[in-house]
């Protein structure tokens, strides 16, 4: 379990906090979606969780331990991270990209290789055809599959995903979302998924945390949030796409 307790983060000395007094728990095995528009603090929150950023105040615990007391490098190796955009290393092959965390952890090369190939298969990339390629030889969707495989390489309990499908076309995004759902059933990881896309949030999230201007507006299951929105902001956030969908349905 990951617990955030009164976490705040400010980049300008406190005038405009990027994250403002957020407390929430991420439960074992669930997928929590952090939903918000740009500037809502969702990516900042994710980066605080593996110490890419340090909070201005508050504490974050992973499995009951305050992460401020842990070595940030070891902490990051124990948490999978899928980056916004691509984030693959252009100087490494697909296989080397996937096997990078095991390499940092000192695994033997045979074991790394086998692991990388298993993971490529798991995310739907045939190793024989893809392992020796370089990232720029792959499509955007394939690159992001590699990104997911890399995050899973050291078999972490937690997976942080920062708008991983944001740059993909709608069709590819849909396919990858379905695959992620299947993968989650198979692997039982605890996932924190950041997005600004309401439908993606509703599709993937066991629970949703809605962020606005650094503050946590509401956290709950889809049903809870749709039926009993806690604030006007949350109500309007979901009302708008619903109207659009209705209009779209009439057209059909």
């Amino acid at each position, binding site marked *: 379990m990951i617990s955030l307790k009164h976490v705040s983060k400010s980049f300008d000395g406190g005038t405009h906090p990027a994250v403002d007094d957020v407390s929430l728990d991420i439960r074992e095995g669930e997928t929590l979606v952090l939903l918000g528009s740009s500037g809502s603090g969702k990516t900042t929150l994710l980066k605080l969780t*593996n110490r*890419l950023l340090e909070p201005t105040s508050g504490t974050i615990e992973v499995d009951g331990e305050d992460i401020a007391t842990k070595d940030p*490098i*070891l*902490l*990051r*190796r*124990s948490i999978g*991270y899928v*980056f916004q*955009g*691509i*984030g*693959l*290393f*252009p*100087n*490494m092959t697909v296989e080397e990209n996937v096997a*990078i*965390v095991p390499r*940092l952890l000192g695994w033997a090369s045979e074991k790394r290789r086998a692991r990388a190939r298993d993971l490529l298969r798991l995310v739907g990339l045939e190793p024989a055809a893809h392992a*020796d*390629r*370089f990232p720029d*030889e792959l499509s955007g969707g394939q690159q992001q599959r590699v990104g997911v495989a*890399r*995050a899973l390489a050291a078999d972490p309990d937690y997976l942080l995903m920062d708008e991983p499908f944001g740059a993909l076309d709608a069709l590819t995004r849909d396919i990858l979302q379905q695959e992620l759902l299947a993968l989650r059933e198979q692997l039982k990881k605890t996932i924190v998924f950041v997005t600004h896309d309401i439908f993606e949030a509703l599709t993937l999230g066991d629970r949703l945390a809605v962020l606005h201007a650094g503050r946590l507006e509401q956290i709950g299951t889809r049903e809870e949030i749709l039926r009993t929105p806690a604030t006007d902001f949350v109500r309007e956030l979901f009302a708008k796409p619903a109207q659009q969908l209705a209009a779209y349905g009439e057209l059909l």
Partner: protein
Amino acid sequence: MTATVEWLSFVAERLPELWLRTGEHLMLTGVSTIAAILVGIPLGVAAARVRWLRSPLTGGVGILQTIPSLAMLAILLALLQRIGAVPAIIALTLYALLPIMRNTLAGLEAVSPEVVEAARGIGMSTRQRLWLVELPLSIPVIIAGIRTAAVLSVGVATLSAFIGAGGLGEFINRGLALSNTELILLGAVPAALLALTVDGSIAAFQWGIRRRRSRGTPFRGMVDRIARPLAVASPLVLLVAGGFACLSTSNPFSGSAWASSATDAQTIRIGSKNFTEQLILGELMGQLIETHTDLSVERRFNLGGTMISHGALVSGGIDLYAEYTGTALTAVLERSVIPDPARAYEVVDREYRQRFSAQWLQPFGFNNTYTITIRRFDATSRGLRTISDLIPVAASLRAGFSAEFSERPDGYPGIRSAYGLRFGEVRDLDPALMYQAIASGEVDVIAAFATDGRIEAFDLQPLEDDRRFFPPYQAAPVIRTETLQAHPELAQVLGLLAGVIDDATMQRLNYAVDEDKRSPAEVVQELLERRGLL
């Protein structure tokens, strides 16, 4: 046709030395480039990592680049107290630092922030990020910097000959000193080809280490197995070939800065400055020692000027060279002019014994003073006979002086105050080129050497030093006391020609080399034969 044949035989005669000099050149360039890589890349990394270090580092290394090459060599000679390959390599390394450091910094800064964040996010330490991601991604830019540095080094290394480090600059210097275009080309053309070769081999190295993108066809497999390793090895092959060329003992040419620098008590190292008369005197002393003693001689000629030759003598880089009393008095000892030749000789000998553990042997006989010289036509048509006659017309005249003359107290600054002379324009001219420049009318006044054969040949008129400003410049061998104690017979051997080379003889010898294009060795041999000294 005959010109081609002559040119070919000219080159063929010098092939062994060309091989040696090319080897030395490669070693100078290679060793300094490697040193600059070893220092420059870490500096670039430091500049990229530590923000407050960036300006001092790029600024400091940039300033090194602005120091003129000869000044850099002179400074290093003074600091290290030695001539030869070591100061040359240090100078070349300092010049090569800037492109390598700059490009390392630029390469690291060009790595996309997304990639850097990904490297941090998956748990790479700072060091792992550098080695696994940032440096590999910067390699093309860094190698481009190394190529710039290496090509630059090939060019600057031609100047290393000024401090006895050898290389192709040896031919160029000799050619400049002797106004011999063929010799200049013999150094310059191979140097240009070498620059292209070095650049090409580093480009090949880069191609060789680049990771292949798609899987192999049979042809590609062959390329990968054979061509790539060869390409990667090519810079090393060049360097090894260079090392072999200049260290191979079978090479008959003595005087490699690399091969025989170990001090051998049976070898006398003779230096010379970089103009014709000095080369003749060096050769003269060399041949006397070779024919009249069992000692062998190593010629470290063409050192870049008085301070470098003197520095080499004091530091033991050479055992002896020919110096002029007036030059020693004013430029080396920084004392005022002594008009009496015997008294001047006495003073320099005493001071050298005390301060430099060196001493003066008997003078050769001639007095190679500076003479303010104009075209004979101007002298007759305008009635100019003495330097004082120049005073009223000086403002309308263009003077061409060597850099050394422009600075020395017994040079332009001195005559300016002694005569109140102010020339309209003063140009820096290489001593070897000034006679041509005045004859063709590009300048009107030069500070010629009294013993230069070209004064007669170019129809020039030296003006009388009516205020007795220029001190006597008697030439004599200057030798390290240590060397003389080990080989006392040298005083007698070098004295064989003492007092017999008068101004006219020296002028004739200089003329034979400068205008008849004969080699100093040949001219000296003829003189010794005629005097029955061979």
